[in-house]
Every structure is written in structure tokens, then in C-alpha cells.
């Protein structure tokens, strides 16, 4: 553990930050310019605001430096007493099952609160996307900034197959996954030799290409107008509507629109859990170990006879397939999709969930999706300041836990005892 910086060093950091703030804000805030009545430039100074901003940065820097010391990563190990630690690990063991039971009961508890049910479906969609991207970024260490492309491929696959051929959701769902996986392999081929920043840029471009193709291929995708009238999912062939052969009539209960919401909730929960199960399973298989080994050291993998090409492609394809499933679900839930739903911001949000959760950790990703999407809604009342508060919360979390909420790695096989591996040793991958 490094020695803690003393008061002079904290003051120095704060002073430097304040100086930078002074330079930045002196033009941005200190001088206000406007076009005058006859088009000339008028300006006036606002030194009061400037001074208060710089003072805020100075104070804030001190607070952050102190926070860094108290709860920062370097001191965290020693500051937590062993009793609390064992308690934490006890809680840690039961967090996942407890969360799962609570999630299963959400439609029962909040049956009459449509807003909460909708929000829960949204959170679960992002949990699933996060788990899907986790295969690519967290396990294989390939930085993918264009994940939304596969989400779009899945959504459009279902939407077009269902509206043009009238195929049911349950037939289209696997097809959407397969098509997305196919596009994952297509993206994988040209980027196999790229690493790190270069890989990120090409995947980013791929996401944009898919979006632009969707916008411009009007005959097929409807362009910016999107696809509407996408069929709702049926309960294995029984429609969830008000008709005589609908599920409500079949079960002899009164029809309510909530039935469909609850069904969608359990559908996305099942899809997300399938993603989770498959990922946990794959991690313990040779292919999953090869993904993680690839993240740790690609050269060593090659020396051990591991085909890095197919290993990378399967990671891309697996992640893309889960994205495709989530896309098909998105299309059936919304009933309408357009290119606007598949912007870079979505990719960035899903990536942020994976990074915040702790790369490679399933529980971490779920908690991060809850924090990000739920937090976003929580701050809705703050209106204009929502993004500001949200951004600040993110910065604080990353100072507190630079390797994500759950940073340590669980081994996939053990002889006597599975010990968590500290995040300091686990590589982040170089693309």
C-alpha cells in the first residue's frame, strides 16, 4: 500500500485543478457575449460566477482527494474490519439468489403499477444486452463499440419476417439470433488483426454502417419511417388479447392489458436468464477458458495451439446472438421500430453497463444495469440536471471502484477451493 499523500499534496492537486478551471471558465463563464441590437458584439463580465465556480472546483478537488483516501481502492483492503468483511461476503453469497427471487415476484408486487413494470422490462432488456456484450468485452477482452448493430439486426429480422411472412415470434426468435450471429462473424473477419483502439473504431463504424443501411434501404426496411404493426408475441400460439380464443377467455378470467405486460416481463426474464446460464456454462468449457486466455495473453494462446481466429469469431458470434435475441424481444414489445432506436448512444450505454459492472462479472453487470437504467429514471425529476448528476455519480463510482462494482474474477475450475482472483491481476484485454 502506498503512503497516503499529505495535506500539502492535496492542496497542490486542488490548486492545479482550480487553475485549470480558471483558464477554462474565464472565457466560457467569465465573459458573456451576445449580439447587440444592431448586430454588434456586446459583452460583459461575470467575475462573481467565475469565482464561485473556481472555488467549487477547489473545494470539490479536496473532497475527491479525501474520498480517494478514505474509500479509495488503495486503502479499501485495510480499512474494512474483518468482521464487516466476512459479513459482506455472507451478503455477497445471497445477493444473487435474493435478487432473482425479488425479480420473479416483481409482477406480483407491482401488478397495478404499469410504470414500474415497464421500467423493469427495460432494465431486464439492458441486463440481457449487458450479459451478451460481456462475452465479447468482459471474457474475450475485445472492445466492441458497435454492439447495437446486432440488436438492430435482431429487431429488424423479427420485424421483417413477421410482417412480410407472418411467421410467429417463436419461429423468428432463433432466426433473429442466428442472423445476428452471422453478422457477428462477418464483422469479426475484417477486425481479427486489429487490437485495442483500432478494433474499437472499426466496430464503432460497423454499428453506424448497419444504421445507415437501415435508413437508406427504404424498400426493405421502410427507411426512417421504420417498421410498424409488428405482431405481439403469443403464449405459445394463444394470443394475449381480448378475442374469444385469447388467453384470458381460455383461462376464464377477465381480460386486462396488464396480462401482456406481465407476459413480456417473464419472457425477457427467461431470455436474460438463458443468456446468463449459457455464459456461465460456456466459461467452464474449453471455449470459454480460451476466451479468457485470449484476454490475458494472445501470444501465449497461439503458442499453446489455440486457434485465435475461431476463438475470436465465436466470441463475436455468441455475443451477437444474444444481442439478436434481445433485439427480437425489443421489436415485439414496441410493435414499432425505427433506426432511431439503434444509435451509438445505445452501444455506449451497454458498454458502460459492462464496464461499471466489472468486466466479466455476471452479477456486476446486472447490478450495473439496474443502477444505470434505474438511476436514470430516478433522477428524472431533476430535469436539466439529470445528466449532470448522473455523470457525477458515475465518476464517483469509478473513483471508488475503478475495476467496476464486482471486479474480482472467480476461477472456472479448482482442485481444493475456489478463491476469488483480485482484479489487479486480471487483464482488461487489448482488443
Amino acid at each position, binding site marked *: 500500500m502506498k503512503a497516503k499523500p499529505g495535506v500539502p499534496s492535496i492542496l497542490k492537486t486542488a490548486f492545479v485543478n482550480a487553475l485549470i478551471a480558471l483558464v477554462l471558465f474565464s472565457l466560457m463563464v467569465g465573459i458573456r457575449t451576445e449580439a447587440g441590437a444592431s448586430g454588434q458584439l456586446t459583452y460583459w463580465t461575470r467575475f462573481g460566477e467565475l469565482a464561485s465556480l473556481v472555488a467549487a472546483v477547489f473545494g470539490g478537488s479536496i473532497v475527491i482527494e479525501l474520498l480517494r483516501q478514505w474509500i479509495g481502492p488503495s486503502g479499501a483492503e485495510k480499512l474494512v474490519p474483518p468482521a464487516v468483511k466476512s459479513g459482506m461476503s455472507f451478503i455477497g453469497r445471497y445477493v444473487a439468489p435474493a435478487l432473482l427471487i425479488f425479480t420473479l415476484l416483481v409482477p406480483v408486487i407491482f401488478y397495478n403499477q404499469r410504470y414500474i413494470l415497464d421500467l423493469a422490462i427495460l432494465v431486464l432488456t439492458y441486463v440481457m444486452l449487458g450479459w451478451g456484450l460481456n462475452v465479447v468485452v468482459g471474457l474475450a477482452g475485445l472492445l466492441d463499440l458497435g454492439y447495437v448493430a446486432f440488436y438492430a439486426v435482431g429487431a429488424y429480422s423479427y420485424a421483417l419476417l413477421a410482417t412480410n411472412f407472418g411467421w410467429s415470434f417463436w419461429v423468428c426468435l432463433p432466426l433473429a439470433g442466428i442472423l445476428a450471429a452471422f453478422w457477428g462473424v462477418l464483422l469479426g473477419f475484417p477486425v481479427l488483426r486489429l487490437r485495442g483502439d483500432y478494433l474499437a473504431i472499426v466496430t464503432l463504424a460497423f454499428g453506424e454502417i448497419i444504421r445507415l443501411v437501415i435508413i437508406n434501404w427504404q424498400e426493405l426496411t421502410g427507411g426512417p419511417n421504420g417498421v410498424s404493426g409488428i405482431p405481439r408475441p403469443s403464449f405459445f400460439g394463444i394470443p394475449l388479447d381480448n378475442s374469444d380464443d385469447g388467453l384470458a377467455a381460455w383461462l376464464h378470467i377477465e381480460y386486462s392489458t396488464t396480462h401482456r405486460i406481465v407476459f413480456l416481463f417473464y419472457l425477457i426474464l427467461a431470455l436474460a436468464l438463458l443468456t446468463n446460464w*449459457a455464459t456461465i*456454462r*460456456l466459461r467452464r*468449457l*474449453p*471455449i470459454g*477458458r*480460451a476466451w*479468457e*486466455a485470449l*484476454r*490475458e*495473453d494472445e*501470444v*501465449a*494462446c*497461439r*503458442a*499453446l*495451439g*489455440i*486457434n*485465435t481466429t475461431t476463438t475470436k469469431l*465465436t466470441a463475436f458470434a455468441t455475443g451477437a446472438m444474444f444481442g439478436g435475441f434481445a433485439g427480437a424481444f425489443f421489436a415485439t414489445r414496441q410493435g414499432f421500430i425505427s433506426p432511431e432506436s439503434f444509435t451509438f448512444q445505445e452501444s455506449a450505454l451497454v458498454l458502460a453497463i459492462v464496464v461499471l459492472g466489472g468486466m466479466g462479472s455476471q452479477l456486476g453487470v446486472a447490478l450495473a444495469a439496474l443502477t444505470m437504467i434505474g438511476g436514470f429514471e430516478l433522477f428524472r425529476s431533476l430535469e436539466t440536471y439529470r445528466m449532470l448528476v448522473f455523470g457525477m455519480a458515475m465518476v464517483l463510482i469509478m473513483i471508488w471502484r475503478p475495476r467496476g462494482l464486482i471486479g474480482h*474474477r472467480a*476461477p*472456472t*475450475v*479448482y*482442485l*481444493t*477451493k*475456489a*478463491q476469488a*482472483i*483480485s482484479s489487479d*491481476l*486480471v*487483464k482488461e484485454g487489448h482488443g
Partner: protein
Amino acid sequence: MSGDKILNVDRLAMRFGGIVAVQDLSFSATRKQITALIGPNGAGKTTVFNCITGFYKPSGGAIRLTHDDGRTIALERLNDFRIAKQAKVARTFQNIRLFPGMTALENLMVAQHNALMRASGFTLLGLVGAPVYREAEKRAIDLATDWLKRVNLLDRADDAAGNFAYGDQRRLEIARAMCTEPALLCLDEPAAGLNARESAALSELLLSIRDELGTSILLIEHDMSVVMEISDHIVVMDHGVKIAEGTPREVRDDPKVIAAYLGADEEEAAAVMEGGS
């Protein structure tokens, strides 16, 4: 002794742009023996290694690997991971390349990737938990356990490899290479950074690999005490060419080798060479 060669390097050349790293190098390694490649810094030893293990594509020459069953493989035509997978050549690295975030056991399991991939039906059988795969995994764990025992790291099987001491990491890397069940094991400076006791243990380990398992070993080494003690045959390189080869005793007394190591300038070395030959 001369007939049964596992590796034949014939007129190997490697150029990087205008720089000639290896030129016209020919040597061979005998099966079930330890062959050492030595030479001063910058002699081109690691380049030769990278050519043999597929990390570089040689500019010229041939590298032939002959398996026990008489099958001959042209290594210069295989690339990348296929050398380890098909030709069964395993290697370690000068700067250790373990998977630091994975446990020792996991490191050894990754080394058995190809065998386990087949057993898991390329993931499909494994995904449904087929008994065939479970048995294969159990055997893989047994092999890994066996190697952890051999390198004396069994009690640390479940610790992250990145936490190991330097000498332990070296031994684990050799165990990992051996878990691929290679025909030829290539070691790039395995004794670098080891103390005298660890070097002695390493020599013992390499001799047991040769004698008990009959694996052929090719090694680059600077630690002369290790080289002279365990090598059956030594090839000496300097400035990309072979300057001598023979048994440890022959090499030790060779004036050209002495000149190369003492850093004599070229005229002096030429004089020594003429005097020697």
C-alpha cells in the same frame, strides 16, 4: 545417434528489411536429447526460435520436424497456432507469458484446449453436460495435477498465476507447455533470473522430462552452468551464423566460441579461428 533427428534446420535465413538476423543456419536436434542454442546477446537465437515455433515466417531455408512415427512436417510452411497444434511443438518465452489472472490449474487446462475442444464436441456436447466431456475434463485435471506435482506447485493450484514468485512462474510455464503433450519442447532462457538453487532444480526438471517422458528439448540459455550440465549437444551462434557445434566439452574448448564470448574484434576473431581450425 546421427540417424534419429527430430528437428532438421537447413540453411535457415531470416531478414527484417535490410537487416540479416539469421543467415544460412543449419543444425539438427536429436530425438530424446537436449539440444542447446547458445551465443552472445543479439546472435539471433530468439529469431531462430521464433522461426521454428511459427511466430516468424523464415525468409529462406527449411525446417523439418520428424515425429516418432516417421511423419515429417515442414514447419516453415505451417503458421501460427498450427505449429503447436499439428506439429506438437511447444514453447516458453524469455519474458514469461502466463495467464496472470487465471489460476495455475486453469493455465494448465487452457494448454489442453485442443484435446478438450474435441471431447466437448466443439462446445455442443459440453453445453449439455455430456458424460464424455466430463470424463475428458477429469482426465485433463488429472494431467494438470500431475504436472503441478512435478513442478512442486500442487499446493498453489488454485492461486492466480500472477501472484507466483518469479521462479515458480518459470516452472509453471514449462508445466503448461508440457500439458500440450509436445514432441519438441522449446525453452527460451528458462534459467534467466533464477538463483543457483532454482537453476539446479530446473536442470533436474529438464533432465526428468528428457529421461522419463522422452521429450526432445531445444533450449536457449545464457546460464552456462545449466547448459554445460544438461545439454547433449550445443549449437553456438554469433551474428546470425553458426560458429560451432558439438558436445559441451568440445564447445567449451573451441577458440571461436571463446572469442565470440570474450567479445574479440573481428580481426582478432579471424586470427583465432584460423589458429583453431
